[in-house]
C-alpha cells in the first residue's frame, strides 16, 4: 500500500514519480490491491457483463491459472476483442473510456505497469485457492 496521505496531492505526486521512473523499475512496483480491485470491478467486470452477460470473478480461477493467464497476456481467443490483457490497462484505453468510466478517469495518469501490477495482485489474491477469494461485487 502507498504510504502517502490519502489526498489528491500525495496521490498525484506518487503517480508522477512512477511515470518518471517508468517501466524500467517494474519489479520494484508496489502493487495496490485496492486500486486493482476498483479497476477490475469498474472496468473489467462492467465490460464483461455488457459483452457476455456474465462476470468473471477472481475466484473463478486458481492463483496459478491467473498467473499463467496474465503472464501470457492473452485476453480472448475468439479474435473479436483485442488479444492483449495489457491493452485494457493502458493509458490509451483508459483515455478512450474515461468519459463514461469513473475508474478509468480516476486512474488515467497512472503508469501502465503500476495498474497492471495492481490488477495482477487483486486477481491472484482473490483466486479461488487463495486465502481471500474475491467476487465481482
Amino acid at each position, binding site marked *: *500500500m502507498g504510504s502517502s496521505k*490519502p*489526498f489528491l496531492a500525495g496521490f498525484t505526486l506518487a503517480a508522477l514519480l512512477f511515470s518518471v521512473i517508468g517501466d524500467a523499475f517494474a519489479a520494484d512496483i508496489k502493487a*495496490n490491491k*485496492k486500486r486493482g480491485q*476498483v479497476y477490475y470491478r469498474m472496468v473489467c467486470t462492467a465490460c464483461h457483463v455488457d459483452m457476455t452477460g456474465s462476470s468473471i470473478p477472481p475466484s473463478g480461477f486458481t492463483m496459478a491459472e491467473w498467473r499463467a493467464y496474465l503472464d501470457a497476456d492473452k485476453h480472448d481467443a475468439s479474435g473479436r476483442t483485442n488479444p492483449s490483457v495489457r491493452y485494457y490497462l493502458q493509458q490509451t484505453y483508459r483515455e478512450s473510456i474515461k468519459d463514461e468510466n469513473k475508474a478509468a478517469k480516476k486512474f488515467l495518469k497512472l503508469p501502465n505497469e503500476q495498474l497492471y501490477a495492481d490488477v495482477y495482485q487483486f486477481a491472484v489474491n482473490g483466486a479461488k*485457492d487463495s486465502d481471500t477469494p474475491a467476487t465481482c461485487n
Partner: protein
Amino acid sequence: MKPDPHKQVAPSGLSRRGFLTLCAGAGAGAAMPWRSFQAAERQQQVPAHSWSRGEVIPSTCNMCVNRCGIKCHVVDGVLEKIDGDSRNPKTAGGTCAKGQAGIMALYDPDRITHPLIRAGKRGEGKWRRASWEEAFEYTADKIDKIIEKHGPEGLLFSSCTDLTEVFFIKFGKYLGTPNFARHATLCLASRNVGYFATMGGVPDADLVNAKYILMFGANRMESFELPHNRDLITGLQNGARLVVVDPRMTVTASKGEWLPIRPRTDMALTLALMHVLIKEDLYDREFVASVTTGFDELKAHVAPYTPEWAEQETGISARTIVKMAREMAAAAPAVVVYPGRRSSWYTNDAQFRRTLPMLMALLGAFDTRGASFFNAGKVKLGSFDWELEPVEVAPRFDGFDEENFPLAHHEDGGYINLRDNILNGTGKNPVKGWMLYKQNTLASVADSAKTLRMMETMDFICAIDIQPSQTAWMADIILPETLYLERLDPLWTPAGTTKYVGIRQPVVKPQGEAKTLLEILQGLGAALDKRREFETPFADVYNFTMEDYLDAQLKKLPVDRVTLMKDGLWIPPGQGLKLGEYRNGNKQFKTPSGKIEFVSERFRRNGYDPLPVYEPVVEEPGRQRLVTGRYAWFTHASNQNNIWLNSLHPENEVWINPDLAKEKKIEDGEYVKVRSPVGEIRIMAYVTPRIRKDTVFITHGFGTNSAGQNTLYGKGGADQALMQDRADTISNNQALHETFVEIVKL
C-alpha cells in the same frame, strides 16, 4: 399519579397510553438533567386500539439481525401493534418478544430525539441539547482537528450489522481511514474462518428432515436464527434426535438431550467422535473418497484421541461417545453437525470450528436431504453507483492485517488487539477519534474497565444511536438516529432456501428531531467539506436519496419500489435448490483443493496446525469458568432497557450449581459478589441444576453505567466487567469464555 422519574419510568399500573402522556409531564417538571430535555415534544395521545381503524403497513423488523417480516398497524400516525407477516418465507408470520416490543423502543421515554453535546465530564451525565446544525459543526470540527494532527488514520469507525451500515463505513473510507471495527469479531469470525478453511464457506442446515442434530452451544430456541429455530421444532416433531453439548442447559438443550460438557473441551469430543467413526469403519467411504482430501493424515491424527481419553477431558463417558458416533453413523447422511453462530468462546475457536465440518464430512452429511448444504444464494440486487473511494490509504494502525492474521477478515477489525494498541501506544499511529454507529462496545467487549481507559485516551467520541447506551453515555456527542419504524432502508435479500426481497420502510414519522443515518452523514459531510478538501467531496458522494439507492438496487428486477412498499416483499419465481451437485463433482468447494480439506492447505501455508491439535484445559482450582449467552427476549446489549422486555427479566443473575451454592452457603435469590482478575460485580444468585459446578453463567447487557437508561440503571451486573481480554489466535474473534471467577458470599 405523579411518577418519580428518578426511580422508575414505568410505575405500576401504567399502560402504554397513560405512559406516553406521562412522559411529557416528566420532561417538563423533572430536575434530573437527563430528563429535562427529554420527551418535551413527545406529548401525544394514543387512541383506543382497534383493528377496525387505521392502516397496516408491511416492513422489516430490526429488533435483532434476523429481519423478520412485520405488519405494522398504524392509527392516526401512532403505531398500535406489530404482527408478523405470514407471507414471509423466513418467518411465516411469527414474531418474538423483541419484535413485539418494537413499539416500546419507538416510544421509549429514554430515547434520544435530538442531538446532545456533553456538558460535564465524560460519563457524568450532563448534556445540553444542540441543534443539528451545531451538532454537525461541532463533530466536523473535532474530526477536522484530528485529521489535521494525525491524518485520517487517527480515526476509528465502529459499527454493528445493519442494512444501513454500508453508509457509515463508506463515510470512513471517503475520509481516508483504514481503521474499522465491526460486529464479526465479537461474534462469529472464528466460525467463519474455520469453515472457510475446511469447506470454503458456512453451510445451511436441513433441520426439518434431519434425523440427528448435534449442536455445540448453539441455542436456537433462545438466540433466534430464522428459519432455523422454527425448523428445529419441526424437525423434532418429525422425530429428529437433538443432542446439545453445552456446560449450561439452555432451552434448546431442554428440547433434546443435554450433554453438560466440561467447558473448552469440545474439540476433544469431536476428535473422539471422528476416532470412533474411523476405527469402527462407520464413516462414509464414498463421500470421503470423492469430495475430501487428507483422510489418511486425519486417520493417523485422531488415532490417539480415543473415547477413553476424551472422557477424561470432557466428562462425557467413553460409552456415551461411542454410542453417539454409532447413532450418528446410523442416521447418516441425515445428520446435521450444526455450525453455530456466536463462536466467541475460546482462544482456539477457529481450530475447534474446523472439526465440525470434518465430522460432517466423515458422516457424508452434506449436500443431501436432512444434512448440511450450501443454499442457493440470494436475489441479485443491482449495485448503487458510488463515487470511487480513495485507494491510497494508510495501513491499519493495529497490525490486524494480512501479515499477522492472514486468514481473518481485516475490515472487521478486532477490539482486543485494537484496544491494546491504543492503550500501549504500540499502533502504527495514534488513534484519537472514535465514531460509533449502533455499537455498544462498553457492553459487548471483554474487560469494560479497559475499554473505559481506552476511551479516556480519545480526543473525541461521537455515538450515533437511538438511546443512551453504555457507550453513548461516555461519548462527547450523541447523534440521534431514526428507529427502523421511521425510515426507509436499503433492501434486504437473505441467503436461504427461499429467496426474496424485503423492504424496511417508515410506518410512522420520526420522533422528535431524529434523522436517518443517511441524513446525518449528509449533514456531517457538508460540514466537513467546508473545512477540508477531500479526494471526493462528500457533497458528491452523498448526493442521493434513499429512494435513489433502492431504485438502483431494483434496476434489474421486475418489481419497482412503489409496488415493493405496498407489498412489503417480493418473491421471485423459479425458486428451488438442487442438491447433489457437490457430491457428484459438478460443483467444487472454495478451498485450494476444491474439496473438503481434513488437512487445511490454508492453515498449513500460513503456519497454523493443518489438523486441529487438542490443547489440554488449564483450570483454576476454586474458581468457576464464566460463560455468557442469551435469553430469548434480549438482543446483545441493546434492549435490556426496553420497558416491556425488561419487565420480563428486570435483572440478570449468576447461575450457580446447587452443589457449589451449598459449599458457599449461598441461597437462591441472594446477592453475591463475582470477582475476576479484572473486575467485580454484585449480582443475584440463581441456584440451578441447569449448569455444571465448574461453570457459572451470566447473561449480558446489564449493570449499565448509563443513568440515561432509566429502566435498566442499577439493576444486575455486567459480564463484560469480569471478562478478560482474550481472542482467538487465528480469526481475532474475542474469546469470552476464558475467564475464571470467584463467587463470594456477601
